[in-house]
């Protein structure tokens, strides 16, 4: 379509050039010529060109945008199994930049690169063939100019545009990260007197971004201007070769006008090329950022053939060793632990003893190097992650709430829950009184990352959310943080009631009043379970120590 429109445009100019020259010649010499054909041709080409351009633009944009939407969703899908282990060090704003800005940049590949390139090549071949029929010299000189404008200049643009283009993409992404950081961390930046520094840093990045863009724009301007100059050269070249040929009667006079116009028109398809290619560096960089992410292998591989899932919920760890990096000490160094169905166990250990790492293993968010974990008698490796996580609910140490209403956050795991169940979960999490006091109740907006809630409220929302999942195994990671002792105590009483019959793994640095919740205590020290005893014995031994 694009090609037809362009060729029609070229033909339009060329035929009018020839038409006018012939008409003038005919007028001078008084010979009657067939003027209907060229006149009709001119009008026909005019309409084809306009209509063609419209349809072409619609079709290419529609196709490109569809492809990009698909790519965005696909990329998001690819990201999910990478979280959290592979995405740990990547900022969400960086992911956001890739998912939005970088994907948008790919639009350029099809709209500004592939289509125009194909059109330019085809148009050049056709036009040069036509020229060849009239004069070899003219065709050659035009070819030379086409090569300058359509090959050398784009190559030159690509060569010099790659570095600023790549840096532009990078700076754009880091600027986005910095701005998200600046927005999310504003309270701290203000309170720690660091906001001036941060704003200066952002200012510097912004300046850098404009500098790279200026470089790119200059390159593009030079490329565009250069191509237009090549067009002028082509016309001059045609005349330079053509004038003597006409003089020698080697070329029909009217054809000279046509060929000159033809050369000029051909460059309509060539002029955009240098500009487009100067942007190539940026586009490649964006594509690289997208595919780097998409090609990242998840740390956990889902089993190829999902087995029939057992109903048993016994959790057993045998000699589990785990570390985050090869050259690092073991975080878990031979953990043996068993959580029978309905059993309640506290895992107690100092800060950094590897408690939360254990929770990550149980969710299949991280692999372990040695030993085996069985859930329901089936090795964890053979469990599909989603099925496993439906049975094991974890309340995170740092729970994340989404920028939505309280209700939407609670219903995340099971959207079909009715209100009665919802309120029961809120009651169990000791939140119902507070929610009833809110003017908007369940529709209250919790803000990004639950910003509108206090630390204790946030944690209880996370607890309610996990309770709604109704999973047979519940893992609570430091549930007391942010709660006062009285609230915590009533929370435990409620939890004790609602978790009857479920297995409970409590992870904490400090058992304190949570002792009422569990029967057994396992002590984790330097990646090993050093002792496991009943809660009574544990408390007695603690008392002796003090």
């Amino acid at each position, binding site marked *: 379509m694009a090609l037809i429109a362009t060729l029609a445009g070229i033909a339009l100019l060329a035929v009018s050039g020839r038409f006018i020259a012939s008409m003038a010649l005919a007028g001078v010499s008084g010979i009657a010529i067939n003027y209907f054909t060229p006149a009709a041709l001119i009008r026909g080409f005019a309409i084809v060109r306009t209509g063609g351009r419209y349809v072409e633009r619609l079709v290419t944009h529609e196709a490109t945008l569809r492809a990009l939407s698909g790519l965005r969703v696909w990329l998001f899908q690819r990201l999910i199994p990478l979280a959290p282990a592979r995405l740990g060090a990547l900022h969400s704003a960086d992911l956001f930049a890739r998912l939005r800005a970088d994907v948008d940049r790919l639009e350029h590949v099809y709209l500004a690169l592939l289509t125009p390139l194909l059109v330019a090549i085809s148009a050049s071949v056709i036009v040069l063939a036509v020229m060849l029929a009239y004069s070899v010299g003219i065709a050659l000189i035009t070819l030379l100019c086409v090569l300058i404008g359509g090959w050398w200049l784009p190559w030159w643009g690509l060569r010099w545009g790659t570095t600023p283009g790549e840096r532009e993409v990078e700076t754009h992404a880091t600027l986005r990260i910095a701005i998200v950081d600046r927005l999310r961390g504003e309270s701290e930046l203000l*309170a720690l007197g660091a906001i001036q520094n941060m*704003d200066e840093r952002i200012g510097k990045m912004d300046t850098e971004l404009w500098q790279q863009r200026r470089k790119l724009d200059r390159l593009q301007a030079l490329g565009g201007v250069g191509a237009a100059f090549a067009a002028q050269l082509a016309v001059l070249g045609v005349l330079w070769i053509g004038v003597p040929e006409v003089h020698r009667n080697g070329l029909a006079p009217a054809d*000279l006008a046509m060929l000159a116009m033809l050369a000029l028109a051909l460059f309509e398809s060539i002029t955009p090329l240098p500009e487009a290619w100067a942007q190539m560096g940026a586009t490649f960089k964006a594509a690289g950022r997208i595919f780097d992410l998409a090609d990242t292998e998840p740390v956990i591989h889902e089993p190829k053939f999902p087995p029939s899932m057992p109903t048993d919920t016994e959790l057993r760890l045998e000699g589990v060793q785990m570390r985050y990096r090869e050259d690092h000490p073991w975080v878990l160094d031979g953990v043996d632990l068993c959580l029978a169905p309905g059993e309640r166990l506290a895992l107690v250990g*100092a800060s950094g003893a590897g408690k939360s790492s254990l929770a990550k293993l149980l969710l299949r968010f991280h692999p372990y190097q040695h030993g085996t974990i069985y859930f329901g008698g089936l090795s964890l490796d053979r469990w599909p992650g989603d099925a496993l996580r439906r049975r094991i609910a974890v309340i995170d140490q740092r729970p994340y709430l989404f920028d939505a209403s309280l209700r939407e956050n609670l219903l995340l795991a099971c959207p079909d829950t009715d209100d009665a169940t919802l309120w029961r979960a809120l009651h169990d999490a000791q939140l119902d009184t507070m929610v009833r006091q809110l003017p908007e109740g369940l529709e209250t907006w919790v803000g990004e990352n639950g910003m509108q809630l206090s630390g204790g*409220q946030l944690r209880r929302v996370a607890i309610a959310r996990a309770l709604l999942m109704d999973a047979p195994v519940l893992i609570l990671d430091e549930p007391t943080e942010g709660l006062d002792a009285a609230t915590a105590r009533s929370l435990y009483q409620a939890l004790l009631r609602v978790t009857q019959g479920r297995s409970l793994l409590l992870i904490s640095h400090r058992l304190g009043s949570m002792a009422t919740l569990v029967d057994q205590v396992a002590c984790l020290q330097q990646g090993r379970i050093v002792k496991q005893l009943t809660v009574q014995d544990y408390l007695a031994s603690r008392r002796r120590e003090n």
Partner: protein
Amino acid sequence: MQPARRLVALAVGSGIVQATLMCVAAWLLARVLFLSIFEHVPLARVSGYLLALLGLAVLRMGLAYEVRRASFAAAVRVVGSMRHRLLEHVRSLGPLWLRSQSSGELVTQVMDGVDALVPYYARVLPQTALAAAVPLIIFLVVLPADWVTALILLVTAPLIPWFMVLVGNAAEHASQTRWLHLRRMGTLFLDALSGLATLRQLNAAQRMIQTIADSTESYRRETMEVLRIAFLSSVVLEFFATVSIAVVAVWVGFRLFWGDLDFQRGMFVLLLVPEFYLPLRALGTLRHSRMEALAAAQSMAELLGMPLPEKGVEKIGRCCVAEQIGISLQDVDFQYAAGRGVLKQVSFDVPEGQRTALVGPSGGGKSTLLDLLLGFARPQRGRILVNGEDLAEFDMNVWRQRVSWVPQRAHVFAGSFRDNLLIANPQVGDMRLRQVVQACALDMVLKNLPRSWDTPLGERGYGLSGGELQRLALARALLRDSPLLLLDEPTQHLDADMVQQIFEAIGPMLSGRTVLWVAHNLDATVYADHLVVLDAGAVVEQGTPTQLAHGGGLYARLLEADERA
């Protein structure tokens, strides 16, 4: 004249000169063709003309480059400071406002919104001026050469802007809808990406994929809507232009045939006619850049028009200068707009150089009090006195230099461990740094990090345990030489041994400084000189830890609840 305006003028001026030279070139070209076709002259007779054409081409290209360069420079002048302005405004709106916003949407405005303005200033604006000037020049040149063609140009030209105005309204509406959607998409994407692990944990990832797919799909549809209008308007422009060119060509041809017009003038006119429409057509293809810029500018204007919180009686530069700080709250009432976090008639003293702990049930207004002391919000009634002076009159920028704060959920900035530690005090000496790192038991943490000080930290501290992150937050606040320390649950995620170790280690650093900390973990309250118990926004009791432990009040009950294990 402003530099930006001068640059636009330069761009437009160069464009006009360029167009004039183009007319000369067209005349020369027509002349060459005439000589060659009708006189069959040898090359030598026209080589002068060809050389002149070459010279003109060089000049015109220089001018065309200048148009681009100057317009882009003008755009940078105008738009380059826009991000800074937006962020400044966000800063003036204050952290409380920001907490109610979505950073995904704001960053979309600051990044993509500002970017969308560039084509407007770099292309649309100069092109609009050229679209008015260049056709006029060509018309004036064509008029003496061939008045019939001039007449055709005169009749068709006004049709184009008229039509563009006609499509304008529908286009603007579609463009605004699209822009709004883009902002919402920012919220959705950034939020989903920040909570990816949570989505997996809750088995909600599939549903989120669906939400994202729906959102991108409707964004695509809205974009196509805008493009369709933009293309339609540009196609109509092209149609007018093409038909006019064709009419001129045929008309010129027939008059040549009849001998009414000589070839050279006919050719000259024919070469100029496409150039007559070119600036208008170029404006048409820039149509959607214009619409996008307008929509982005509108939403930015809304943000910039957001009324700033009242400055009150704040006096620039005013602050207390005393080395030690004592605070006294007098009948302070406060409530957030949403009706949460209520303080009622709160009065108590934070004696200078002492450690005061705030205790009480969750949601009792303890963190709210810290917001007031940091100047993020102002009491609606009552006063906060700092060494006897009203905090409301202080210059908050100066006051905050005297305060250090550990929030309940410390923000981890993108960067390394070192960056995060030094953010509050980049010039801190090595000695001091080592001291603080050791006191907060961070040296152990550093040993286990893969790249030690240079380990990049993930968002929300991924890679650090809760307790490690807490110690990092504490350390960065301690690195500041501020006489007042506000700590919101500094001991969360820390076990009793660690708390004891840290408090003993930082003890010397705290001497002489006033500390106010919010404590849920009652173990740590033994390190306080003074306790204030807050319940439902009111002070219910205060005293030394020993007094209150035996006072039979709320604190004693909390302590009992904590110990009953």
